[in-house]
Structure formats: structure tokens, C-alpha cells
């Protein structure tokens, strides 16, 4: 089984190396290498999953990496269990589909080979993260996916916005990573190991005080929040849409941003010990979901809508984990990966044909792009949680879990957010695909087959995955199997609300029964507030400008003027003393002569006194 894991992991790495050093000149070979490698990985991961399915359990492989201390081994390793094997499949699948899709999307792009090499590197890093058997390895790959995200967001580096967005993404997530790093170090120092299973065992024995557990959990969550774009570290994700759309689909919707959730799942045994930490996660997840969902309603950029939707859905996952909905959260992660990738790729297809991101410059695309429209609709329905798509199963599981855990306020907010979700998706769908034509002089056309075939496949998954929810919950659970409740009321209610929201959107944007402009006028304040994304970016800018830059400039100034000033002051003192003494040397021989004779006289007096 570990040979298969090695295959999964090393194929993309080999592809990266090959493309970077050898095939960079030929675009076709580069993309082919990358895709073949990914296909092999996908097959291997499927085999691994099959093996795991046949005998569930933890399979571990350890390889020593750095030997300094006997009682703190630093290792690399593989941990295969249902959780990781499922994630392997998801990553490989989405990555492969995105790579196929990119053949069309990135056609004629200047950095085509570079794109494929980075995407291979990303796949490698993401897979490495998934199979990591210890926190350090996870952290390593965690940073590497962050790097790939940076590189791929900045794919069109000559655009200032892209360059800025890339930097912002890296730096903001780095803030989160700081917490994770501290957590890793803290755990290593306290438990003497990085290994997940051993940490679980050691912590289980109660070696850490409850406060310490909470602290560690929150620090880990800090990292997760950075990567999974949770409030208040979510600001990088919308900007990250500057990258190529397939990248948004792969990294910023399906895989990397889910890594934060995956991290929490991997270290759930820590969170499970701390009620406080769980509550924090739940509250932050829920508020993120609500906030991002509400912002998504007013966005004009199709990718931004999806980006905020991603943040919102990640908030859902966090909420689920916060209310002991381990299985539900993870399941939503997987379904979300498929339908959000689908949505992004669909959006990419539209953008590819119209060369604009603004939904108000689209319209009635259903006529021209049937496949895209239908698959986008399926994705949208899945996201809205309409039966029988996969989103229905995963999202309702979360809602039920929240209600069952007794967090009524959170449930109410989450329920409302579900309504938002349906509304903004419907808004986008109607405006882009059904309403009046708003583009002129352009001739939208259906994308080539390399682009729509992945769409169809992903759409199939987005619909089909939901039916595996029971099997999933038997395979993946924390503690005890959480038998899915066959509650009827909540799914019914949520579906009704979703349909209601869709109808509302239909009324506003399709039939224009209710004027959107009038609504904007009516709720000008709310609209402005949402349009400006709760002014969080502004707050950050304010903080960075007024705190960080001021502090750094102060440090720079302090260094130049105080520390160095002291040095230069010493210089100055010496040289001015010398300058004063220098005046004695007038260059006038007679002055010197006065000195000579004066000295002689003084000497004489002195010698007389000595007598």
C-alpha cells in the first residue's frame, strides 16, 4: 500500500521536475506529462481507497528525517486511514479535471509550461499534506501549498493586482501559520513527538492541562483559519481570484482552502478535549458563513461571488466541526470540493468566452453555452442544498448537527445563510444565463470539449456523491459512528427556504418584478455595507498603515537615528574633540614658538618647585 502512496506522491513531483528542467519549452509535452502523472496518481489513490475500504484502520510508515534527539524524533511519514484516503481521491480527481480543463483555458498562455509545473508541484504538496503522519510534515506541506498558491495567484505577475493578491494571500495565511507553528512547537515540546497517533495517545493520557489543550487547539485553529479563510483572516481569498480561474477552482475552492478544515479534522482529538475551542470554532465558522454569504449577494464579479461563497461554505464546515459534526463537516468538504470546482470551472468557461468577470456584462448565455449553463445550474443547486444533489445531504447534515447540539442561535444564523446561498447562486445564474443579453459585439460560444467534459464529470459527481453519505458516515467518524438522522422537518424547511430564495431571485433578476435598484435605494446603508465587504479590508489597511508601517518605520528611524545616532554621536564627539584640538595647530610657526618658549619657562618653574 505504501508503494502506491509513493506513486501517488511522487508522480506529480516527478512531473514538476520534468517540466521545470526538461520539457518547459514544449507546451504540449508539459501538459501531457503533468496530466499523465496526475492520472496515475488518481488510479493509485483509488486503489488505496479500495484497500482501505476493505480493511479500515490506520496504516503508518515512518522515515527518520533529522536525528538530533532520541526523545524527539523528527520524521517524515505516511498515515493512511479512511480520512486521508478519501481526501487523496478528492485532490487527485479535482486536480486531474482541472488540468484537463486548463488545456483549453490556458491555451496560448505565455506561461503555459510554468503553469503546469506549478500545478504539479501543488498537487504533490497537497497530497503530501493529506498523507502526513505528523504535524511537522503537515506544516511543511502546508507551507508548500501556500507557496504554490502564491505562485499560481501571481501567474500573471505582470498585472499589479495579481502580484498584490499573491503577496496578500501569502502574508495573511502566514499570520495563521504562525499560530500553527507555535502549536507544533508547543506540542513537540510537551509531548515529545510530532506524530499524530502518538500525540493522540499522549494527550489522551491527560498530560496537558485543559488550558494548555485549549491554547493548542486555538493555535491550530489559527492556522486553519488562515488557510481556510475564516474570519478575520478571510480577506485574501477574494483577492486571490486574480489568478487563473482553474487555479481558483483547484486551490481556492476545492483543495487548499479545505486544508484548514482537514487540519482540524486531523487534530480533532485535541479539539474534542476542549469545549471552549470547539465553541470558538463554531462561532467563528458560523459568523464567517453568514458574513461571506451576505457579501456574496452584492458582488458583481462572478468569481468574487464564488469566492465569498467558498468562504461561506468553509464557515459551514468549521461550524460543523465546532458542534461535533465531524462526519458532516468532512462530508461537506468533499461535496463542496466537487460542486465548487464545478462552479468555478463553469464560471471560467463563461469568462473564457466573454473575457469579462462582470456578471452585468453577460446575460442569456444559456442560448450559446448549453453545457456550461446546465452544469453550472447543477453546481448552483448543489451549493444551494436542493434535493437530490450532494449539497443537500452534506449541508442538511450540518444543520441537523447544529440543532442537535443545542446551539440554537448558530442554527438560526446558519439556516438564514443557507437562504442567502440559494439567493446569490440563483441571482448569478439568472443574470448570467437567462436574463437579457447585455454584451454587445461579442460572440459567446461553447467552450471546447477539453473544457466541458470535466464540467460534465464534475456535475455527475456533484449530484451523485450525495448518495454515498451513509456509507461515508460509517467509514469516517470520530469516536462513535454518528448514525445519520432521518429527520424530515429540517431538510424540508431548508429546501423550502432555498426554493423560496430562488424564486425571489427569479422575481428580482429574471422577471424584474421587484426592482433591484429600488431595493438598493431602500436599503442603501446595508447595501453599501455589504458592497464594502463589512469594511474589513479597510480595517486591515488601516491597521497595516497605522500600526505595522508606523512601527516598522519607527524601527527603521530608531535604528538610523537613535542606535546609529549613538554611534555617530560617539564619532562626532571624537571628531569634534579632535577638531577643537586641531585649532591649536594654526600652521603659524610663531604660535608654536610661543609654545616652545612658554614650555621652557614652565619647565624651569616646575624644576624650581621640585627643588
Amino acid at each position, binding site marked *: 500500500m505504501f508503494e502506491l502512496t509513493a506513486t501517488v506522491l511522487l508522480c506529480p513531483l516527478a512531473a514538476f521536475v520534468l517540466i521545470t528542467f526538461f520539457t518547459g519549452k514544449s507546451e504540449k509535452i508539459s501538459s501531457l506529462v503533468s496530466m499523465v502523472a496526475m492520472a496515475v496518481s488518481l488510479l493509485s489513490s483509488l486503489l488505496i481507497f479500495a484497500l482501505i475500504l476493505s480493511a479500515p484502520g490506520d496504516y503508518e510508515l515512518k522515515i527518520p528525517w533529522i536525528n*538530533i534527539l532520541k526523545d524527539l524524533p523528527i520524521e517524515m511519514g505516511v498515515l493512511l486511514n479512511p480520512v486521508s484516503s478519501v481526501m487523496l481521491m478528492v485532490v487527485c480527481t479535482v486536480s486531474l479535471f482541472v488540468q484537463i480543463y486548463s488545456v483549453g483555458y490556458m491555451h496560448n498562455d505565455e506561461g503555459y509550461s510554468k503553469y503546469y509545473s506549478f500545478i504539479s508541484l501543488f498537487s504533490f504538496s497537497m497530497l503530501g499534506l493529506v498523507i502526513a503522519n505528523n504535524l511537522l510534515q503537515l506544516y511543511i506541506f502546508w*507551507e508548500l501549498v501556500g507557496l504554490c498558491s502564491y505562485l499560481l495567484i501571481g501567474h500573471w505577475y505582470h498585472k499589479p493586482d495579481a502580484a498584490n493578491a499573491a503577496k496578500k494571500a501569502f502574508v495573511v495565511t502566514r499570520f495563521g501559520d504562525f499560530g500553527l*507553528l*507555535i502549536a507544533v512547537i508547543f506540542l513537540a515540546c510537551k509531548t515529545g513527538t510530532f506524530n499524530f497517533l502518538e500525540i493522540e495517545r499522549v494527550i489522551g493520557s491527560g498530560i496537558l492541562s485543559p488550558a494548555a489543550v485549549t491554547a493548542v487547539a486555538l493555535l491550530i485553529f489559527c492556522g486553519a483559519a488562515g488557510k481556510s479563510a475564516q474570519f478575520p483572516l478571510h480577506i485574501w481569498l477574494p483577492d486571490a481570484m486574480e489568478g487563473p480561474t482553474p487555479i481558483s477552482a483547484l486551490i481556492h475552492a476545492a483543495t487548499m482552502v479545505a486544508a484548514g478544515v482537514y487540519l482540524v479534522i486531523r487534530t480533532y482529538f485535541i479539539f474534542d478535549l476542549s469545549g471552549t475551542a470547539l465553541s470558538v470554532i463554531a462561532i467563528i465558522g458560523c459568523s464567517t458563513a453568514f458574513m461571506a454569504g451576505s457579501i456574496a449577494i452584492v458582488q458583481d464579479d462572478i468569481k468574487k461571488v464564488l469566492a465569498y461563497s467558498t468562504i461561506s461554505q468553509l464557515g459551514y464546515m468549521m461550524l460543523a466541526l465546532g458542534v461535533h459534526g465531524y462526519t458532516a463537516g468532512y462530508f461537506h468538504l468533499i461535496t463542496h470540493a466537487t460542486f465548487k470546482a464545478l462552479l468555478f470551472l463553469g464560471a471560467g468557461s463563461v469568462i473564457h468566452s466573454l473575457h469579462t468577470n462582470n456578471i452585468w456584462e453577460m446575460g442569456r448565455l444559456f442560448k450559446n453555452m448549453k453545457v456550461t449553463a446546465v452544469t453550472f445550474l447543477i453546481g448552483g443547486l448543489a451549493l444551494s442544498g436542493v434535493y437530490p444533489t450532494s449539497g443537500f445531504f452534506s449541508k442538511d447534515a450540518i444543520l441537523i448537527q447544529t440543532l442537535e447540539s443545542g446551539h440554537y442561535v448558530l442554527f438560526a444564523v446558519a439556516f438564514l445563510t443557507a437562504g442567502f446561498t440559494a439567493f446569490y447562486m440563483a441571482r448569478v445564474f439568472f443574470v448570467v444565463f437567462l436574463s437579457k443579453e447585455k454584451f454587445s459585439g461579442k460572440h459567446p460560444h461553447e467552450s471546447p470539449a477539453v473544457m466541458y467534459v470535466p464540467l460534465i464529470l464534475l456535475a455527475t459527481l456533484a449530484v451523485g456523491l450525495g448518495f454515498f453519505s451513509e456509507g461515508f458516515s460509517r467509514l469516517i467518524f470520530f469516536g462513535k459512528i454518528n448514525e445519520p438522522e432521518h429527520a424530515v422537518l429540517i431538510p424540508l424547511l431548508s429546501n423550502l427556504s432555498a426554493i423560496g430564495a430562488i424564486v425571489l431571485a427569479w422575481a428580482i433578476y429574471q422577471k424584474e418584478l421587484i426592482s433591484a435598484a429600488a431595493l438598493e435605494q431602500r436599503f442603501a446603508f446595508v447595501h453599501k455595507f455589504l458592497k464594502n465587504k463589512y469594511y474589513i479590508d479597510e480595517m486591515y489597511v488601516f491597521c497595516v498603515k497605522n500600526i505595522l508601517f508606523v512601527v516598522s518605520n519607527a524601527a527603521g528611524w530608531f535604528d538610523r537615528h537613535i542606535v546609529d545616532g549613538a554611534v555617530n554621536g560617539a564619532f562626532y564627539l571624537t571628531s569634534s574633540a579632535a577638531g577643537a584640538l586641531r585649532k591649536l595647530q594654526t600652521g603659524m610657526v610663531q604660535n608654536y614658538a610661543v609654545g616652545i618658549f612658554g614650555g621652557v619657562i614652565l619647565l624651569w618653574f616646575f624644576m624650581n618647585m621640585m627643588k
Partner: protein
Amino acid sequence: MIVHFPFLSAILSVTLLGALIIIVLPENKHFLMKVTAGVTGFISLVLSLALFVLYDRSLGGFQFVEQIAWLPRLGITYQVGIDGIGLAMLLLTGIVILTGVLISSHEFKAGGLLGATGRPKEFYALLLVLVAGVFGVFMSLDLFFFFLFYELAVLPMYLLIGIWGTGKKEYSAMKLTLYLLLGSAFILIGILALYFSSGLRTFDWLVLRSVAFPAHFQNIVFPVIFVGFGILAGLWPFHTWSPDGHASAPSAVSMLHAGVLMKLGAFGIIRVALELFPIGAKFWCPILVFLPIVNIVYGALSAMSQKDLKYVIAYSSVSHMGIVLLGICSLNALGLNGAVFQMFSHGVMTALFFALVGCIYGRTHTRILNEMGGLAKLAPFLAVAFTVGGLASLGLPGTSGFVAEFLVFLGAFKAYPALTVIAATGIVITAIYVLRVVQKIFFASLNPNYIPEADACTMKDQFTHEHLEEVSDSGHKGFPISVSDAVLLEKIPIVMLMGILILFGIWPSLIINVINIGVSSIVQTIGGSL
């Protein structure tokens, strides 16, 4: 396996011989001088590598020891030997000198950075003398020779910066020299105190190590030596020579200086302060640890506010040397291993940086960040290399910088949890300024000051008035400068340095196993917790 070839003396004599040959070469044989310097660097690297391979890991301790009585009546012996720590440093020096010589040999071409000053003969001779001094420090087992080599390494810097530097070079050279001599004064006091108080009248490090000095003596002398060497290691608040010095020095000198010379300070702290004064170390390190913390955070913050590329790199060196010193102050195996590994890693990384800065400066004729932009289009190789260097600098896994910083933080956390958390904020700030620099130089739209080399001729006639105005607005007068990518002579050393960064990032055990041999004996001496 004990090999009787005198490797260490061979390294020393090869570098000195190289300097001698360059001095006697005729004035106009520039190519021969470069070749001689290159060959000298190459031989010393090969010899270091040979040592690295031949060093018996199972035996540990000091190997390849050579001993010649020099002034027996004063207890001065020419005694060299190498342990794990010295080995890593030797390897680093070999790498940096070779790459430095290669980089500077390109800069001596007409139109290059050093082309205007010329005088390659003196330059290379001084460079090799400096390196001989550095090699000498890393292998000396006699405090007299230790100090002698130390001064030999420090003093040529004055001339190298004062003559071949840029900007306010005289000021920088003077400042640097005065500072380092101040440090030397401290060190000399410490060494003499050792010499006289031991009662043995010997400079032999091995003998002195076995002397148990009384606690109060250790407590007095330790901080003196710590600060003395700390000045060279960029210890706050004695670091301000380094930004000015690095900014003014030519690339190869900056590479050697930040890459190797600053490590002499840290190495001296380990070799002299830590190993000879274990009690003093235990007493002082928890107090002195605040300075490295300030180094890390404050250095990074200062780096963020700089507008000059070289100053950014120089302040980042201050910040990174803070990590080294933090590791040393943690006094445990993890921290010390991390510190030495960081010395190695930062040496390579900063050499890479300064090499690149030289390449960039040679092309753009400015080091002000705001005057650059979009160069990735014209010089993709430099962009990639700089990004790799930057990633190593911000401690990205996969580069040696991560392993080093992680080990240091791990070790330091065991000793000073709260302070380590503060220090670790440095890595966030580092990310901010490194990416900012990368972005300002290479990304975003191309600054109109620069055009591709191919367009230089064809475009010259087409410059409209508006274009020139636009150009002059951005602080550049006159025609745009054509910018090309790195040439082979630049690519070789840069690729070498990049490769080393990544190799040791992926496979740190390769060198940590050796370092650990040296470190574990220190930890035993200190008797600290592991």
C-alpha cells in the same frame, strides 16, 4: 579513518598561495588573476568537501589535528583541528568564496560594477587573504592563532569596502572597522584573562577547555567575550555597522561578509564563550537572550521600512543572525544544532541574495526599490533565483532556512517559551518584507526605465517626448536601460547556491549529522538539558 594528509594546513596555504600568486602576476593579466582566484576557491572547496567526506562520524571530536610549537615559552602553538561545527563552516566558506569569486569576475568586466574601479589584482589578493583568515578561525585550536586569523579576516574588509565599494563607502568602511576592532578589543581582553587566570600560560584551547574556571570569573568574562564576538555577529544594539557595510561593499565582499564573516562572530561565541565558560553561559544566556529577540523582530521591522534593496538584505541578515544567537542562547542540542545549521543556511542564502543584488544593481543602476518593477519579464532567471532566496529567507519548508529556523525555535521554546513566541513573529514580518521586495523588483508592470536588450537599438529612435518625461518622472533621467537576463558566469554560482539551499532543505541530515557531533559535545560540556 585517520588520513595523514594535512588537509587543514593545505586549505590555509592554498588560499594564501593563491593570494601570493595573484600579487606577483603582471598588472594587466586580469584573466589569469580571475582564473587563479577561481582555482584557489575551487581547490579550497574541494578540500573542504574532502574533509566533509573523510571526517569520521563515529569517532567525533576534533580530527585532522596538526600541531607545531610556535612560541613554546609563551604557550603559543600552531594547532588546527576540526569538529562538526567547524566542518560545516569550512564547507560554507568554500562555497561562498568560490561563488563570490565567480560573481565578481563578471563584475570586473568593462561596464560591470567593479569595472570602473578596476585593480582586480589587489581585490582578489585581499579577498583570498580574508578567506584564509576565515578558514583559519574555523580550524584554530589555539586562541592566539584564533585571534590572529580573526583579525586577518576582519581587516582586509576595510580596504575591500573602502576601495571597491559604492555609495558612502569610506564612512561604511571606517564604521565597520572601528566596530569590529571594538569587538576585537573585548575578545582580546577575554582571551588574555583566560591566558593569565588559568595559570597554565597556554593558549591551547583543548587544554583551557579542561580547566574549570571559578564561577565568578566565568560570570565576569563570559559577557565580555559574548559581546565582543556578538558585535561581529550583528548583535543588537551593536549591529549598525552591518547595514552600512553591506550596502557599500561590492557583491563578492558582501557575500563573504554577510555569508561567512558574520558567522565568525557566532562561531566565536560557541567556541570560546560557550565551551570555555559553561557556568557563565548558564548564568548569562537567560539574560542576554533578550538581545537576539530584539535582533529578530526589530531587524525584520527595520528591513520592512528600508527603501534600498541592499539595506533590506542587510537588515534581514541582522534579523537572521538573531535567530542564530537565539539558538545559541537556548543552550540545548536542538537550539545549537539549529543555530549552526542556520549559520550555514543563512550564509548560503545571503550569499545568494548579495550575488543577485549585484546582478540586479549592475543592470538597473539603482538599488532603490521604487525605481524598479516588472523585471521578471526581462530577467526571469534572476527572478526565480531571487524568489528562491526569498523563500529560504522567510523559512519556507523545502529550503534549508526552514529547517534551521524550526530547530532554533524548537530549542528556544524549550528554554524560553514566551520569548520564542515573540521571536517567531519575526517570520511573519520576514514574509511581508521579502515578498514586498520580490514584488517591487520583479512583478507588476515593467518600469518604463527598462527595456529588453533586443529592443534597445530599435527603440532608441522612437522615444517620444512623453516617454522621456514619463521616464524622468520615475527618478531616472535619460534613455531607458536595456536589461538582460543572467549570463553563464552569473548563472553558475547562483544555481550552485540555490541548489545547496534546496538540497539541505530537503535532506538536512546530510549536514546536521555532522553538526550534531560537535554540538552534542558542547551540550555535554554545558551539562544542560537536551
